[in-house]
């Protein structure tokens, strides 16, 4: 029971960390960044490079953010910017970028599955259960990410401008907000978050050139049911991630893998706003 609760909480935390970057980009730019999976892969390989260089595994997180952020800047400038008026095309173009990232990584690192060193190993005793320390640490990291983003959006001038662009871009532009700059920074931040997410999940699984793709669809569905709110994303991650854990343990892991996508599709059919409030 306790183990299952911990499973649900940690799964939700991982999903949250994976989906925030996508949510940010979708909220501000109304664009689904299908390169998110590719950027996660990039972050995973950044972690691999870091640990192979013998650095502290925790350093993988800033390194991955740097890799993702720099790639994000280039993507926004050259690919996404011309496609603001064509959101469906932006999905396709960013998917194409995902392919490019995957192939470049394959050429550089080979096709094989590789493993990184986890920054935390072993288990922690919690409520009488011994549970993976790294998974527990992820809950803290995801919470820190969520809080930092909330603080950024609610407490800074850039955050205020970003929220203005989210609500009414034309008006925001009319008030002298440089919405192109807001978009550029948002995309860069979203891409950096994707990189961080990639680095965070690598100790749990392995690193391969297509590692980001399975996460992409789940993250995408979570974002769609959450609208543009970090809070409803948290709710969505807990509910749908929880459902995934329950289905996977009580029915079959295969069905568990489908839970988020199918449930989210049904939720959107019944309530197009999903978990978002009015």
């Amino acid at each position, binding site marked *: 029971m306790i183990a299952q609760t911990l499973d649900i909480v940690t799964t939700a935390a991982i999903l949250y960390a994976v989906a925030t970057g996508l949510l940010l980009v979708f909220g501000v730019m109304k664009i689904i960044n299908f390169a998110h999976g590719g950027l996660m892969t990039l972050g995973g390989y950044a972690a691999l490079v870091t640990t192979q260089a013998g650095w502290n595994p925790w350093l993988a997180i800033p390194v991955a953010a740097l890799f993702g952020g720099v790639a994000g800047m280039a993507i926004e400038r050259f690919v996404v910017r011309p496609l603001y008026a064509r959101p*469906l095309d932006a999905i396709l*173009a960013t998917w194409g*970028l995902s392919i490019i990232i995957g192939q470049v990584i394959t*050429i550089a690192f080979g096709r094989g599955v590789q493993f990184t060193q986890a920054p935390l190993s072993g288990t922690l005793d919690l409520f009488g259960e011994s549970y993976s320390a790294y998974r527990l640490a992820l809950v803290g990291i995801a919470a820190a990410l969520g809080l930092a983003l909330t603080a950024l959006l609610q407490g800074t001038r850039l955050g205020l401008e970003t929220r203005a662009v989210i609500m009414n871009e034309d008006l925001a532009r009319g008030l002298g907000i440089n919405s192109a700059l807001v978009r550029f920074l948002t995309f860069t931040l979203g891409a950096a978050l994707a990189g961080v997410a990639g680095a965070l999940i690598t100790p749990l699984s392995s690193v391969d050139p297509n590692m980001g793709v399975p996460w992409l*669809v789940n993250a*995408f569905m979570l974002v769609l049911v959450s609208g543009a709110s970090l809070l409803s994303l948290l709710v969505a991650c807990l509910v749908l991630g929880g459902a995934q854990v329950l289905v996977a343990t009580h029915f079959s892991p295969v069905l568990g893998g489908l839970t988020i996508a199918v449930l989210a599709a049904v939720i959107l059919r019944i309530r197009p706003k999903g978990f978002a409030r009015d």
Partner: protein
Amino acid sequence: MTESRRLSLILAAAVLALAAIFAGPYVLDTYSVNVLTRSLLYAAVALTVDLLWGYLGILTFGQSVFFACGAYAAGLVFTHMDFTPGNAALALALGIGAAVFTAAIVGWLAFWHGASALYASVITLVLPIVATQLLYSGGTFTGSSSGLSGFTSFDLSTEAWFWLAGSFLVAMTTLAYIFVQSDAGRLLVAVRENEQRCKYLGLNTSRLKIRVYLACAVIGAVAGYIYAAYAMVVAPELAGFVFGTELVIWTALGGRGTLLGPVFGALIVDYESAQLSGNFPFIWQLIIGTVFVLVIVAFPRGLLPMVFDLPRRLLGLVRPRGDVARPARVALATLATLDAAQTQGAEVGNGPALAVTGVAKRFGSLTVLDGIDFKARAGELVSLVGPNGAGKTTLMRCIADGAERSAGTIIVNGHDIGSRPPEACVAFGVGRKFQMANVFETLTVAECLQIARARHARPSLWRRANILPLPEAAMHVIATTGLDRQLSTPAHLLSHGLKQALELSMVLALEPRVLLLDEPTAGLTKTERMQIGAILIDLTKKQGLCVLLVEHDLDFVREISSRVIVLHQGRIVLDGSVEEVVASELVKQVYAGSGHAGIAHETAPKTGGQEVPA
């Protein structure tokens, strides 16, 4: 070019393509024939992606699933049962059945009234993921991750399979080509361009989308069946997301909305992949990915239109400018006037043409309309006046779409509209002209008008009509405004006034009983305005229409209305004859914007139990 000439040209091209297919095995090596057989079948699926995405505007990632339906039906039947002609037919039927069943579920999920384009894409994205997982978890029945192989199949030579796949592709492409060029096919583009206008023209766009989707599923399933029978191996990747996106990539590279582009895109890329991926697997994928991104960003029309444009551009360099005018679009030859006795067919009914009772509209805590009660008879021209923000347009919207209002009932021609969608309201006799001219921008004037008639005259699936019969009223507007001289002009090139006139004639072509006009004369000259006014009076007097008109020009209102309703802050403050309203002190106050509190006070008792005689 006559209609039969056009069709015979298409058929002649198809025969040429068949001849090329027939010659294929004699000029190609065995390896290429083998690879191309597969590519030809993939191309048939890419064709369905183009129909859905290029023409109908539905970006679909899941066409691979229908291919897999057909393929797995063959694989499963031939593996678990003996291969007999009867079982082969059974497998084909099962494959098509499974595809249709799946497509029906997807259609129900993705194409309901109000679903966004993004949501439809999301559903088609989830579909292949679900399908692959189900195939993985099928154990020995579906062969799990390794799929099924080693089953017996039709005993045909390599050449015969090539001919079969090629003929199938040519047949499907020809049919699709004839369809998209037909009157019915033009509806697809109309839905892509402006789904809202289609609904308000009485077209059930959800049903149209589902039908096209089902047809595409069947094509995919048959292609998959041929594939499995030929390759004698099926794998879960056939249903996968990656194959689904590859189909989209081929379509985008070839040129969406061209049919031939995606077919050649699929053939060339898949064939070259097989040739090159052995030596440079990752580089090849990298090149495809890069070209794909480049095409999406810089050449969204794809590569085929560029290839076709090239000779024209070269000609343009040689010949003097202006000589190479774009070929004029084949226009409808003529308009015709329908006999007045045949139009406005919907029964007038006994009661009022329009009865609005207790209608309210709220956005959250904001009340935009409250306690709206009025009735209007056939033959009445009721003007709705009031300052900006009074709720006039919102009221129009509530009458034309059953899902809009928050409370109250609306009865049109004796039919309670309930919460029915706009196309059902149109069937009851509602015709709505929007405030901003709302037409199909890329279609020509004639095409726009024809789509407006699609509800009455079922468009042909393979032919193009060259005579367009229109009701007298629509013809009158067209002739008065001079639109009849611009029949082959794309709507986006029209002036604002002509667009307004075009939309008005489109709405009149619906033969409505209750006509909702939101500032129909905005942007028209004084003369045009008076002509439209005369037409409206004519419609109400002679044809017995009930017209509800939103108008700011009080002189115009005075001239044509039989009754005026004044709306202010979401309530009816006055409902009476033109004279009463013009003389009213209240109306002057409302328009002058003074004394809001006073008005609210004065009207409060009035709106309570008021029942203004119609």
